[in-house]
């Protein structure tokens, strides 16, 4: 009953819109918990798929499902309290769309069929657009328009990529179902030219959704205008799902013996994203935009790591987990800051260390974590990626990678210092509450725990996920 992970949030999301808000918040948390438990059942292999034509459990899909489900649960706890303070009239819409969004992301993680994957990624756009438009302001409208327009065009191009992959199968003369698992078996017979062309369209299409530069322009707007719990989910879960689309394409090319071609494309997109993030983070005025650019950077890091291959792929998968944990925790803290100061601009905040000590700890620790300081997991993953890059003899790429990391740290730390220790002499609007900082702490602690102790089952999942693109712990 693998499909239950898709159906349960779908049903709950449909029903929740008609319930009173108070009850709805509880249902959302309960659904999050049920989803998490189901995901764990799926992970230990207790739930075979019913429609194996379209869905299956793959290690990389499981990994992303686990991360999504885990952070959703904590975001749901936070969202209840956050929404109480904001008092939006459209809150039932938020609760419903949030669950539908979870459902569509689970579908992405479990999809095995080329077109089902595409439909699921399209569905995530549909479900998340109302989340961005929740505040109904002019700016929210602008962000939503950009998001829908740019991502729709991107996804349409990805569909073209799917057609080209079908074409490459036609030309090879073989007829199998359009699932990734069966395409993998005949990968070597596929026509290489059209497979390559298909991959280029796929990476442009899904890369738009993933936030790879230069198709990233919707991302800072959408992430800064959405309410903070929604931004946390967009950044921590949605980007991973889009990455899965790119990853499956890369897998197919690797199995067809064209891994070097797709790897090089991934490396260039990754480095470009990091450089663009480094430039734009430097003179940023809003802290949520800063976090959004940091997401672009981290997606770049993941694409880079996967492109390099070998040890770096292992690093990239670790990075995916830790980025989701830390970044969603940061966005939740940013929600507290926004509630407290009432502005998204860095210059209208300050003295956080005194005024909001609990949020300050979460935000500062999260910032240290995302910049790659121990004891958080990003440290390990980035070191592994750098080691992998030099092992493979990619000295230039590795050097650019390190330089971009340094620039981003320098740019972001200026803003974080201003927010934490700068002067602020106005009234604060909303006091912080334990219920709104504990989810951030929990996410950060998970990152810390996974850094010192990685469960064997998770380790196995990562290893089998990266084995399909030629990655491994031994280089």
């Amino acid at each position: 009953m693998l499909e239950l992970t898709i159906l349960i949030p779908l049903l709950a999301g449909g029903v929740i819109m008609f319930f009173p808000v108070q009850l709805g918040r509880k249902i959302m948390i309960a659904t999050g918990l049920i989803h998490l438990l189901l995901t764990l059942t799926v992970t230990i292999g207790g739930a075979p798929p019913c429609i194996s034509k379209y869905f299956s459990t793959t290690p990389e899909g499981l990994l992303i499902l686990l991360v999504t489900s885990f952070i959703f649960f904590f975001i749901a706890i936070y969202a209840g309290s956050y929404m109480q303070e904001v008092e939006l009239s459209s809150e039932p819409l938020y609760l419903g769309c949030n669950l539908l969004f979870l459902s569509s992301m689970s579908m992405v993680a479990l999809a095995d069929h080329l077109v089902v994957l595409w439909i699921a990624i399209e569905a995530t756009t549909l479900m998340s657009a109302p989340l961005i438009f929740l505040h109904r302001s002019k700016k929210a409208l602008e962000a939503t328009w950009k998001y829908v327009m740019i991502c729709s065009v991107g996804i349409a191009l990805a569909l073209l990529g799917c057609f080209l992959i079908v074409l490459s199968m036609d030309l090879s003369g073989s007829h199998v179902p359009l699932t990734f698992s069966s395409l993998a078996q005949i990968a070597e017979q596929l026509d290489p030219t059209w497979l390559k062309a298909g991959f280029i369209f796929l990476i442009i299409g899904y890369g738009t959704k993933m936030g790879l530069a230069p198709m990233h322009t919707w991302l800072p707007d959408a992430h800064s205008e959405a309410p903070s719990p929604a931004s946390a989910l967009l950044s921590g879960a949605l980007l991973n799902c889009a990455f899965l689309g790119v990853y499956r394409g890369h897998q197919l090319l690797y199995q067809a013996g064209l891994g070097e071609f797709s790897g090089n494309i991934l490396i260039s997109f990754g480095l470009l994203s990091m450089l663009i993030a480094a430039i734009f983070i430097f003179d940023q005025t809003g802290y949520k935009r800063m976090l959004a650019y940091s997401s672009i950077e981290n997606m770049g890091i993941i694409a880079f790591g996967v492109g390099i291959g070998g040890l770096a792929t292992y690093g990239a998968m670790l990075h995916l987990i830790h980025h989701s944990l830390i970044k969603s925790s940061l966005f939740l803290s940013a929600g507290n800051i926004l509630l407290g100061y009432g502005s998204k601009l860095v210059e209208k905040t300050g003295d956080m260390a005194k005024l909001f000590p609990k949020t300050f700890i979460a935000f500062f620790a999260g910032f240290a974590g995302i910049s790659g300081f121990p004891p958080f997991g990003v440290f390990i993953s980035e070191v592994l990626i750098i080691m992998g890059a030099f092992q493979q003899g990619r000295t230039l790429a590795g050097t650019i990678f390190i330089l971009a990391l340094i620039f981003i740290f320098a740019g972001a730390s200026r803003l974080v210092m201003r927010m934490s220790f700068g002067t602020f002499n106005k009234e604060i609007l909303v006091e912080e509450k334990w219920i709104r900082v504990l989810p951030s702490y929990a996410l950060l602690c998970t990152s810390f725990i996974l850094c010192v102790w990685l469960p064997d089952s998770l380790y196995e999942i990562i290893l089998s996920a990266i084995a399909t693109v030629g990655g491994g712990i031994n280089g």
Partner: protein
Amino acid sequence: MIQLTNTLLALTLLSVLLSLGSDRLVSLIKIMTFQGIIVSLIPLTLLFQEHHGEIGAGNVLIFQAMLIIKGILIPWFLFMALKKVKMRREIEPIIGYHASTFAGLFFILMSTFIADRFFQIILNNEHVLLLITAITTLSAGLFLLISRKKAITQVIGYLMMENGIYLLGSTLAKQTHTQYVVEFGVLLDILVAIMIMGIVLHNINSTYDGMDTGDLDSLHDLDSNRSLFHRLKG
């Protein structure tokens, strides 16, 4: 039947050129309706040609749905959206109408080159015109999307792009048993986009006057007073 297909394709190309040159929103929507109907008929004629009139029930259903959505639902939605705005013309496009028409001609040339250069090997000659039309429609749609400021024209550009993808899909993936993939994908895509864009369009309309996406420029990365450029200027 080949003659019929080719006539339809020529009409599609004509509608592409017309839409690039039209400045009145009403006539633009009428052209899109026309194009939508033509484009959903083309794969039907192709099927006829291949199977000599034997078309399965599933195919008929899909084509009917396609025709209803492209020929009735979408135009209806666009007219509804247009009714709410006072604006009747696209004023100040980013790229002018004559230049746009010229660009359209250039796209035809370019797609002829692409079809000739890359696809010649894999397709027998009868589908070359189909391919040219598909690539032209696709690129002209993208062009319309980026060269116009009105939200509704951008949606039309998106729809035109989808038409192109649908044509391309039915040319390339036609031979396989997975043919519903194309139709289903495109239908879903269009429905989704129309729903979302409809809601947003409605809101742009009530928040701003006149659905001009040129007004949607308040989100920046840099504070204009503090930007590097201003600093350099002193």
